[in-house]
């Protein structure tokens, strides 16, 4: 960061800066490739997380905002400059968190994309990340359904693996993966009944419950859930605490799903009844 960056070459107009304000969403990609996690499904997780860089206020050459990624909500502040059609930003996180750092990015009026890098203040596993983000508007919508892409898989809890075909790594035959049942229900839009959840497997119950949080833009700390919901087109990480936003239906469904999840966790594969 150079000292001359405080200088603004052109005064920013309200119209343009209002256009810059809001959520910029996309993948937060490790600067150097990290050994990816083989999930046993058709994808591997390479430590990319969906990030939401929210530019909240532009006041002359000063900018404040926050980022939401991987269960972390961090404010930032810094400066904005303009060169021709390009707005350049250098913003810093407070620095009191192990994972704080500095964002440098630019938005080109021409292509309306936010592109840049992030460097960590401390020595951490992935010290540099890059990103190209698009402007998104977050609106809570109870009717959102899960995209029919890959299944959810809990690659940490997986119990059984079978050798994969022709060196594709171990294939996970764990039952902690979702089935087609998970697409049948929407736990935000409909009150689920005992009969409906009684025949669902652990992972389906788990993902149904967590999709409630995802609709509200909850940013997941759990790697597997993050990898799953980050791949959902509609998903935007907005907040790390969405409890106050839950609707009455959702609260009831969470309670119901939790009971069956706990039951499945304890008894599904144990000597016992349930």
């Amino acid at each position, binding site marked *: 960061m150079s000292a001359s960056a405080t200088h603004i070459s052109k005064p920013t107009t309200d119209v343009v800066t209002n256009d810059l304000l809001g959520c910029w969403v996309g993948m937060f990609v490790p600067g150097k490739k990290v050994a990816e996690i083989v999930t046993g499904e058709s994808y591997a997780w390479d430590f990319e997380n969906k990030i939401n860089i929210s530019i909240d206020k532009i006041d002359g050459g000063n900018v404040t905002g926050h980022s939401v990624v991987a269960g972390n909500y961090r404010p930032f502040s810094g400066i904005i400059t303009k060169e021709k059609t390009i707005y350049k930003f250098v913003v810093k996180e407070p620095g009191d968190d192990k994972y704080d750092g500095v964002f440098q990015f630019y938005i080109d009026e021409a292509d309306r994309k936010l592109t840049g890098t992030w460097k960590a203040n401390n020595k951490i596993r992935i010290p540099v990340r890059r990103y190209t983000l698009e402007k998104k508007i977050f609106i809570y919508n109870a009717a959102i359904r899960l995209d029919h892409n890959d299944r959810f898989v809990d690659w940490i809890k997986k119990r059984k693996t079978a050798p994969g075909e022709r060196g594709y790594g171990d294939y996970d035959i764990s039952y902690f993966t979702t089935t087609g049942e998970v697409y049948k229900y929407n736990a935000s839009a409909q009150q689920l009944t*005992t009969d409906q959840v*009684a*025949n669902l497997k652990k992972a389906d119950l788990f993902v149904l419950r967590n999709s409630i949080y995802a609709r509200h833009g909850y940013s997941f700390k759990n790697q597997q859930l993050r990898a799953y919901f980050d791949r959902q087109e509609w998903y935007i990480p907005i907040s790390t605490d969405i409890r106050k936003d839950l609707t009455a239906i959702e609260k009831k469904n969470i309670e119901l799903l939790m009971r069956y999840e706990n039951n*499945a966790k304890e008894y599904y594969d*144990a*000597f*016992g009844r*349930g």
Partner: protein
Amino acid sequence: MGITKNLYLNKAGYLVWYAALLWFSYLMLLITLQYVPMRTDVAFLRIKEDVVGMLHYRIAFFAHVYTGMFVLLAGMLQFPTYIRCNFPTFHRWCGRVYAYLIIIVTGPAGLIMGIYGNGGWVSRSAFCILAVLWVIFTYKGVTAAINRNITVHRIWMYRSYALTLSAISLRLWKWIIVLLFQPRPMDVYHIVSWLGWVGNLLIVELYIYYNINKRKASINAMSLTKV
């Protein structure tokens, strides 16, 4: 030589059988202890929220759970020949505990639980039929004992205990099926609600046919030739 070898094999077989019974009874005890002290927010009752509010269901559930263990153990003590021959009074008292608990408490309680069972009519009918047969078989065994008809007593009590053991076999089948196929939970439940006791009953009918009826027939045949 051959006969003693067979005897030892038989003895080993019995030992394995009793060891297994004791082990699974221990597992059942662990399941029972989840409900001590009396709580309605644990284990199986967590997914029975819709019925656990009803007093008669709660009475039936805890009566069934708390007496089931004694039925299982009292029944187990009835089989060794040693106990039957040397301590006939003990045999009778254990028999009374076993039979009256089933006929008055555990069986009827099981029927009430069956009526409100999970899994719709498929498993409900299975559990209700199981409870009714359990009481009938046990009652038949008792009347035969009172009438001193020991062969008939044995047959009905074998059947009764086969149904008692469904507490174990149902859970064992569930464990095996989940291990092998990982089906959806209510599908497993439907299967084991029937398999859990019908399987036992089939085995015990085969046992009765080959070990009691056939032997009786051969004894009859022998006595006929003598005459």
